[in-house]
């Protein structure tokens, strides 16, 4: 495995080019390799069942990565890696992670395509903004979910103790410490004190804030994780890279965070799927990641549940599962908000697609990840239960494709005007932190409907 200091050296000595030129290079090489490896989006095969295509996609990502390298925006230089270095990094990656401790301890193992083993699920509210008053209940709503193998929370909205939380200010450090404390308190309050944290604080914080918060006395367990993100397609910066020397000297788990934009610099679904695979190479070599959080999103709709996005999710995770033993979470971004049938359809489609494609799950960013206090544990439940149902049935990709295509017409044409749904206070009892009858009834109705399409829910008649 390449030494981190060699990576830093390359960020200071690699080819110097303007960022705009690197963007053009990404677009140009992406188009070239997509053509060379005959990667073609098929709107009728939303859940792709073409093994050869998945393998060609992986080969295209290798070719692309070796040609473009990784751009360091802090130095304006391109870090290049050899094929040997790349495959060495993939070979030396872990194929399992132990999350949490005590009776809450869970082991995540690398999954294969059409793997009958259940998905490992991280319940999260991603970056949905929450006020100080409701942050704890929101975190409890995910931590208490029975199928949440590990958990995360949302982002703090604007103020803490009446003081604005601004990026780069001392309040950012204060908020990060408050954030991890509340997450751990949430886990304790729901009787899962040892539940693993997928990311100890919101990934939006600067490195100094994240490092300051990652302490046992604030709530961190030894194997809790921290995410290191690419700042844009195939780009990193020193603020993200600063976390690495810290993490390598701790027991914390290192995660990679990749959200290429479909329609952005890598082009359409084919190029963006390929670039998402290539980001895993970036993560292994630059951040020494042990797992990844994949949230490709459609550039205008800020979600990944459209037909093209589900194809992208399906193919990228299959390429990874067929050609590596990496641990990769598929992070749902849905357009609609809580307590809507629209959201339930999106979540079920995403869960099924990810599960049969060999991914683990990380549901979910709700209401496009921007409408305040509109994300709860229930969305994680809806997505994960669909995924568990699919794996328990031993569902094939072809079967999944038929079900997903029956559900898609329920929402795809109206995605741009998806309902924002209800806030947590409107669809949860905030004292018991349980979903309202209205929300549970809505879910039951949707479950019955998708059951008629062939998805068999084997358990939890709530």
């Amino acid at each position: 495995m390449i030494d981190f200091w060699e990576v830093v050296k390359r960020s200071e000595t690699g080819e110097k080019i303007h960022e705009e030129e690197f963007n053009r290079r990404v677009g140009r090489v992406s188009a070239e390799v997509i053509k060379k490896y005959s990667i073609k989006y098929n709107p009728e095969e939303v859940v792709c069942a073409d093994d050869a295509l998945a393998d060609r996609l992986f080969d295209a990502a290798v070719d692309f990565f070796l040609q473009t390298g990784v751009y360091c925006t802090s130095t304006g230089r391109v870090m290049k890696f050899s094929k040997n270095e790349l495959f060495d990094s993939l070979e030396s990656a872990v194929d399992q992670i132990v999350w949490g401790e005590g009776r809450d301890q869970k082991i995540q193992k690398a999954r294969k395509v059409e793997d009958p083993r259940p998905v490992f699920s991280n319940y999260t509210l991603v970056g949905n903004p929450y006020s100080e008053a409701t942050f704890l209940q929101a975190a409890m709503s995910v931590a208490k979910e029975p199928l949440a193998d590990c958990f995360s929370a949302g982002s703090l909205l604007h103020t803490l103790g009446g003081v604005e939380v601004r990026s780069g200010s001392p309040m950012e450090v204060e908020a990060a410490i408050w954030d991890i404390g509340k997450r751990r308190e949430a886990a304790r309050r729901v009787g899962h004190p040892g539940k693993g944290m997928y990311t100890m604080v919101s990934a939006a914080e600067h490195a100094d804030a994240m490092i300051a918060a990652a302490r046992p006395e604030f709530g961190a367990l030894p194997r809790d994780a921290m995410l290191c993100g690419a700042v844009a397609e195939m780009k990193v910066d020193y603020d993200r890279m600063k976390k690495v020397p810290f993490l390598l000297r701790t027991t914390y788990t290192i995660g990679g965070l990749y959200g290429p934009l479909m329609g952005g610099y890598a082009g359409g679904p084919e190029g963006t799927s390929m670039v998402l695979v290539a980001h895993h190479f970036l993560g292994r070599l630059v951040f020494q990641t042990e797992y990844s959080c994949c949230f490709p999103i459609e550039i205008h709709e800020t979600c990944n549940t459209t037909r093209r996005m589900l194809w992208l999710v399906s193919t990228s995770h299959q390429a990874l599962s067929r050609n590596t033993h990496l641990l990769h979470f598929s992070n749902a971004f849905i357009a609609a908000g809580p307590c809507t049938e629209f959201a339930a359809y999106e979540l079920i489609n995403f869960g099924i697609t990810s599960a049969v494609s060999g991914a683990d799950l990380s549901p979910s960013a709700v209401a496009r990840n921007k409408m305040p206090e509109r994300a709860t544990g229930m969305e994680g439940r809806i997505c994960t239960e669909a995924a568990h149902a699919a794996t328990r049935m031993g569902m094939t990709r072809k079967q999944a494709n038929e079900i997903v295509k029956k559900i898609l017409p329920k929402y795809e044409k109206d995605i741009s005007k998806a309902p924002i749904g209800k806030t947590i206070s409107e669809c949860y009892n905030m004292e018991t932190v349980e979903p309202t009858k209205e929300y549970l009834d809505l879910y039951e109705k949707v479950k019955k409907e998708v059951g008629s399409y062939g998805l068999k829910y084997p358990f939890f008649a709530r």
Partner: protein
Amino acid sequence: MGDDFKQMKEQVQAGEAEKLKELIKKALASKVAPMEIIEKALRPAMEEVGQKFETLEIFLPEMIMAADAMAAGVEILRPLLAAAGGEKKVGRVVLGTVSGDVHRIGKDIVRIMLEGAGFDVTDAGHDVPDDTFLAKVKELKPDILGLSALMTTTMQNIPRVIEALKAEGLRGKVKVIVGGAPVLSDWAKQIGSDGYGENAVQAVSVSKKLVG
């Protein structure tokens, strides 16, 4: 001439800079006015590109190639336009991502589409200190200042820039438009901005209204 303009539009949309330049040279030799080429071929071509990008018939690389082709065409016209009193721009815009925020793709797309629509755009970059925005407004006297943020912790820096404009006596001299993933329409009104774009297409239409 209609066919020539049509061909120019096709070459812009195909990102074929060299072929576009040949067509422009041919048109100029036929005494077509440079501004007519811009207004009847290049800008409409980029408007169509923007519409196709909005519906994802094309993607960002194609839009960048089209913008590059248009820029190459304008480069030929520039000396002639200068001699005729300069290119008539729709308006002048300074834009950037606010302090603390390293995200730039949304801001970059807005820049490309504003340029294509005929605005004179100065991109102040990302993670831009408040003082830099103030200096650019003083120096360039833009019609519009565009402020973008992608995180809840950085969007707080948008109203700070607006307050700084007020403190410097500049607020009445420039319209402020805001955007970015966490920014909502109501919040944009609440902080006293003049316009909000949920996406790049809206940013262009709002900008046109503000200078119209």
